């Protein structure tokens, strides 16, 4: 019999042939930042924790969130959410409701009493934190996580800063605020209330007692309108107004209140006054639709029958018999180059008058820098600080409103976090978190939307207007668990692998192995470098990297 085994019949599989030599690039699995993450002031790993919500792992989501932000329940309520503005899903249908999901996780943590773990080891060094607002609390939290001893000095009778004294309860329930602060202090922060660090000497003394100091005393000085007599009884300071108990708020305001300003504080004042039963008008320089306050706040204010007079400014005020006449003029408003800068040009002949009983200017606050003169240098209206938030005095770091014009709560939380890590890098470089690598952002073009169905966002329900105006209860109602799951499923998980196996299934060369929780592995013997896995990745968490070794 002839030997027919060799030339006619195959006798080995093609795995004998190494086709990986064909390639010039190799897929690289790398979670890269999503636009929401890059936009987030605390750099919270949004795609990751939403992924945990998708899987029903709320606790895991909380742990991920709390790595960068100890206030998910607060941020979920009041964050100005640049993440949502940046969200890639906007291109398909509608942004993912990130804040409402964050609130869902934050509320669950409070409901379940999930606390923060004790630090792995107590460290000898101590850090003083001056100011118990969002920046200070955030720094204290991160420093305690490392194990530093933390002394927190707060001038007022309770912690929270602007979150407590500036944001009304209908936006941020006090139990939530207290709960999230208590979780931080429970980590072993040495809290000193009613303890004002009043001047540069006191600060310098603190610096000597501690290995580092973090200064986050906020912006306590109201900006003033030159056309307004602040001594008059019908002028009320907005910060004082918001901080006051309801009975005092009532006592200070007449029937018709004019609020001057278009920011969040102005909205808070206006809506608080509405809840006191006042008629409220808001006067803003910015035209309608361009107010610096969050759109949702403006919308809700409008629903609450607050009247907006936008694109106008006060020229003079005349107190009359029981009422005040405010002479106003329309203006052309244009934004300046720097954030917060602007220019207004009065429109001749557009004068008009308003008649009200109380005027509450809410046009912003400035930091009090005089206190630190001689110790800390300033840059314009804020304390000068480097990239690591260190001031001109080594070992003194600063953040929040005292060191930045970024005035949103979450921005302050982010600054506190960054400073804490910078302090850790200075005091305990071995354990400090490294400065994160700069990675390319995963844009919409890297999301394969073939794997997504268009599906509108699930919005939080709002309390009926009539009901809102009778209480200071929260307006925005939380998502149910089902709604949260559904909303979380809308997240593209930009830049974060969701283990969908597309890369595995779409490889024509069977060159990708599934490693369960450890993701995937590319077999360099067979990968031809076509990039199909990258093209079909729904999350943009793979990219092709040049491969010279093939």
């Amino acid at each position: 019999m002839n030997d027919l085994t060799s030339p006619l019949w195959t006798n080995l599989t093609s795995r004998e042939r190494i086709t990986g030599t064909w390639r010039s690039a190799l897929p690289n699995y790398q979670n890269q930042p999503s636009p929401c993450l890059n936009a987030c002031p605390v750099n919270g790993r949004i795609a990751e924790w939403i992924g945990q919500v998708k899987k029903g792992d709320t606790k895991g989501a909380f742990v991920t969130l709390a790595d960068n932000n100890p206030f998910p329940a607060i941020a979920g309520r009041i964050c100005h959410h640049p993440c949502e503005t940046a969200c890639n899903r906007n291109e398909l249908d509608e942004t993912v409701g990130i804040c409402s999901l964050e609130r869902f996780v934050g509320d669950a943590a409070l409901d379940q009493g999930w606390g923060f773990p004790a630090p792995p080891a107590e460290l000898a060094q101590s850090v003083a934190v001056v100011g118990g607002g969002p920046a200070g609390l955030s720094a204290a939290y991160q420093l305690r996580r490392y194990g530093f001893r933390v002394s927190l000095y707060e001038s007022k009778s309770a912690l929270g800063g602007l979150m407590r004294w500036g944001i009304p309860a209908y936006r941020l329930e006090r139990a939530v605020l207290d709960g999230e602060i208590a979780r931080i202090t429970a980590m072993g922060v040495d809290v000193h209330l009613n303890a004002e660090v009043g001047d540069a000497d006191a600060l310098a003394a603190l610096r000597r007692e501690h290995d580092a100091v973090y200064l986050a005393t906020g912006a306590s000085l109201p900006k003033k309108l030159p056309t307004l007599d602040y001594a008059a009884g019908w002028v009320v300071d907005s910060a004082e107004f918001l901080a006051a108990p309801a009975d005092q708020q009532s006592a200070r305001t007449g029937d018709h209140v004019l609020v001057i300003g278009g920011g969040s504080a102005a909205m808070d004042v206006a809506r608080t006054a509405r809840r006191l039963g006042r008629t409220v008008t808001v006067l803003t320089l910015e035209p309608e639709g361009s107010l610096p306050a969050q759109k949702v706040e403006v919308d809700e204010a409008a629903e609450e029958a607050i009247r907006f007079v936008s694109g106008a400014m006060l020229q003079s005020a005349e107190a009359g018999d029981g009422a005040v006449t405010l002479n106003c003029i329309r203006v052309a408003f244009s934004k300046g180059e720097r954030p917060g800068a602007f220019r207004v040009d009065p429109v001749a002949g557009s004068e008009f008058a308003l008649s009200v009983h109380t005027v509450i200017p809410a046009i912003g606050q400035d930091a009090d820098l005089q206190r630190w003169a001689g110790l800390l240098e300033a840059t314009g209206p804020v304390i000068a600080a480097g990239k690591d938030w260190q001031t001109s005095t080594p070992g003194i770091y600063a953040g929040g409103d005292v060191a930045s014009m970024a005035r949103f709560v979450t921005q302050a939380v982010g600054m506190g976090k960054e400073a804490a890590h910078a302090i850790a890098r200075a005091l305990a470089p071995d354990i400090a978190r490294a400065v994160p690598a700069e990675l390319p952002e995963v844009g919409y073009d890297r999301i394969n939307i073939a794997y997504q169905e268009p599906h509108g966002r699930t919005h939080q329900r709002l309390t009926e207007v009539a009901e809102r105006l009778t209480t200071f209860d929260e307006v925005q109602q939380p998502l149910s668990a089902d709604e949260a799951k559904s909303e979380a499923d809308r997240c593209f998980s930009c830049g974060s692998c969701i283990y969908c196996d597309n890369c595995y299934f779409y490889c024509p060369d069977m060159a990708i192995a599934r490693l369960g929780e450890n993701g995937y592995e590319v077999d360099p013997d067979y990968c031809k470098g076509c990039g199909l896995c990258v093209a079909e990745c729904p999350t943009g968490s793979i990219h092709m990297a040049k491969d010279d070794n093939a």
Partner: protein
Amino acid sequence: MNAPANIETRQLLNGNHAVAWGVRLAKPDVTPVYPITPQTPILEKLIEFQSEGKFAAELLTPESEHSAMAACIAASATGARVFTATSSQGLLLMHELLHFAAGARAPIVMFNVNRTPASPWGFWPDQIDSLSQRDTGWVQLYSESPQDSLDTVIQAFRIAEGSMLPVMINHDAFYVSHSVEPVSVPAPGLIDEFLPRVERPMQLDTGAGQSLGAPIGQASWNRTRREMAAAMETVPGLTEAAASGWRAMTGRGGGVLEAYRMTGAEVVVLTMGSMAGTARDAVDRLRDEGIAAGLLKLRLFRPFPADELRAALAGVPCTIVLDRNYSPGMGGVLHQEAKAALYGTVGAPRMHGLLAGVGGVNVDVATIARLVRDYRNADPSPDAVWVE
């Protein structure tokens, strides 16, 4: 020479029906066939056997001979015993797959009824259809009579399965395919014993998963032809063994070459197919006239039995080749092949190549006797000669 009555029955059969009987006894697993005159009676008879429950093969009736042969090759590659039949145009349509079958070492047995190829159209006995397939790698056998056809088709499976080469048996249109004679049909049990199932070295096997005929490099392709050459070398021996086994069982039949009255022959007629029967009578007539004539019937044409031919013609002064075929530009195919086989051998006979009966023209006993008389002392010509 008659077979014992208990193992064979005598039936009046035409050549095609005799083939069908042989196939029935050989029990192929798959039989793809396409009708063509004058092969069709083979197909019809097999279908008749099947309808009677006497023939269990999977019968496939595809749309062309090409597909029939494709199915044969594929079926054979699974290890099945496969038979098909065709003629002329059908065989020519298969041409691509004839190469393929041999290359794939598919031991298919095919019966071809030799018929003139078009154009012009004709339905007459002529062997150029099969002879023009001589380079495809098929073993070719030529049958003289219905009995020969029955006997040979069964032996062909032994040769095919022994060499892993496809085998084509040919008989002439009408002269054999449609002429009726008493044919001895062996009992089925006899054939089962003669034709045991052979274990294939390789087949399409779901367990092993090895593929057949995948693209291959030059050296390996070259090797496939060397292996075919080696297989071809075994065929004369296999043919002789099958023939002697058959003779032992039935008392009938020749092997590679069949010699008739070769003792002391001074002129030998060399031919194939039905012409051999006529030539046999002519030889008798010439012997009666005192001319020492003999006959060599070539049964195995491919591989060409050069050694056997040289031995048979050793010392014979003159050979007359009768070709019922014409290769334009060269002459009779058998003449060419015989010349090539004998070229350079010591004492090779003078050889005349006569184109007799091309296109089915009748060549009777008297004609052959006349041709022998005319050419036995003539000077040899290297070229073929058209004769009447």
